């Protein structure tokens, strides 16, 4: 499947380059991570409780169904974080990192 989301307007914004699971993708400045990922793919992450793929639900930071991670393990809500040049996103949950372990 190509993108799940369809762009309808505002397409002349400058582009931003980022990586998703190691692959370079191009997004537009002002895109949320969710829009950057779902205009080019059909899902954001794997459900932890069943074989289902998930693509977010509420888009207002309430459902927590759109979590993705940076390469360094920081968890981001894809609906409420904008793309930044050079972001390195992973869509599978990394090992739990305890802050005290350094």
């Amino acid at each position, binding site marked *: *499947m190509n993108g*799940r*989301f*369809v*762009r*309808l*307007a*505002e*397409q002349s*914004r*400058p582009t931003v380059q980022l990586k998703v699971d190691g692959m370079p993708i191009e997004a537009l*400045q*002002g*895109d*949320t991570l969710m*829009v950057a990922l779902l*205009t080019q793919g*059909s*899902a954001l992450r794997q*459900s932890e*409780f*069943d*074989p*289902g*793929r*998930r*693509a*977010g*639900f*509420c*888009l*207002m*930071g*309430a*459902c*927590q*169904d759109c979590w993705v991670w940076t390469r360094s*393990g*920081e*968890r981001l809500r894809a*609906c*409420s974080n*904008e793309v930044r040049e050079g972001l390195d996103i992973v869509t599978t949950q990394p090992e*739990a*990192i*305890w*802050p005290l372990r350094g």
Partner: protein
Amino acid sequence: MATARLSTHRVVVVGAGPAGTRCAETLVAAGFKPILIDENRRDGGQIYRRQPEGFTRDYATLYGTEASKAGDLHQSFDRLRGQIDYRPDTLVWNLTPGQLCCVSQGKHSTVDYDALILCTGATDRLMPIEGWQYAGTYSLGGAQIALKSQAVSIGHRVVFMGSGPLLYLVASQYVKAGAKVAAVLDTSPLSKRIGALPKLLARPGLLFTGMKLLAQLYRAKIPVHLGISPLQVLGDAASGVSGVRVRTARGETLTVECDAVALGYHLRPETQLADLAGCRMRFDEASSQWWLAVDEDGRTSVSGVYAAGDGSKIRGADAAEHAGRLVAMALLEDLQQPVNVGLRDEQRHALAVMDKFRLGLAQSFPWPSAQAKALPDQAIVCRCEMITAGELRRTVSEKGACEVNRAKAFSRVGMGRCQGRYCSQAGAEVIAAAAGVSVQQVGRQRGQAPVKPLSMLTEEVSP
């Protein structure tokens, strides 16, 4: 004396939507400098959400019939910026008497208050349907945010399903923006709307706007079905939504192909912070859900804690602006400050009219509680942790859990990462039906801190 009090009295407003903005504005006019904390990066709340920097659509395109109200609110906020202590991108995740716990960009801090005004808004009210966990099912409000804030459609062929005025508003916004709308499927029958006309006529302009939206959909040849019963979102775990199946008012099975569903049944209030503050709640019979118990002007049952907007009573954005002004005046009055009585009466009068209208809306687009009873056992109630209606029913039949918090402890429905926002009301209906009691009797899910998940990497900042 009065001046000294003003400068030392710490007033915190939570939420920068229509209620929070008008509240802050009224406080500033009275000489206060409130702290305004908002979870969003920009003001406007959900309804008047601003598009990101660099987007160029004008107000008419973005907000349609509500363009001038959105513009007024944003301009009012811009004028306030230097006169308030505005803290965007900040989540209030817990509170104790006199102190809020906040987190912003991974940093935790506390904010002390003497008076707290909660303008926390609402989220979509959801009733599950078999298959709603498939990727491509979005909340109706979410579908609107995609368009308004990001200029995207949630899919190539979108079905709008549920009930309430937002269903028609968002569907028509999608059509206008050039998205492909496959169908609008409303669970409420036309007869309800006709029965509610006397109440809806309290706001003839708004009623007319609603009729215009419907006319636009018909003109665009969008299939609109009233009085449907949702049966299933079709699709599979790997690729997501491929269609919806419903029973029409005439009893026929209708299947509509689509790759996205926008689902919603009007709104539910975000009451967690008020709940943590110990504010009393009350069951609203008309909408069949728990609201915050507030007096006419927005005082909660806890001294020093106030509330306005959809976070206390679901009455919509226009009402939220009036309630925001009114709640600020309630605080002023409680602090023995002068209050513009004429302005206060205007707000009260406007709200009385809107109350009548909202009863008409509740009657026109009823919450479909019977659907919960009819949910097949294999249908998912909790999307977060994939817990079925059957599992929830067994907590009632096998463990005797006839109260929602007890059923939550046994089943985990309401314990997932959305913290019950999208499942607990339907869950309560499932429990009530299984126990053979009213939904009011099974109670409501208690608010828990943190009101949203915090990152393990959150750092404490010393004050």
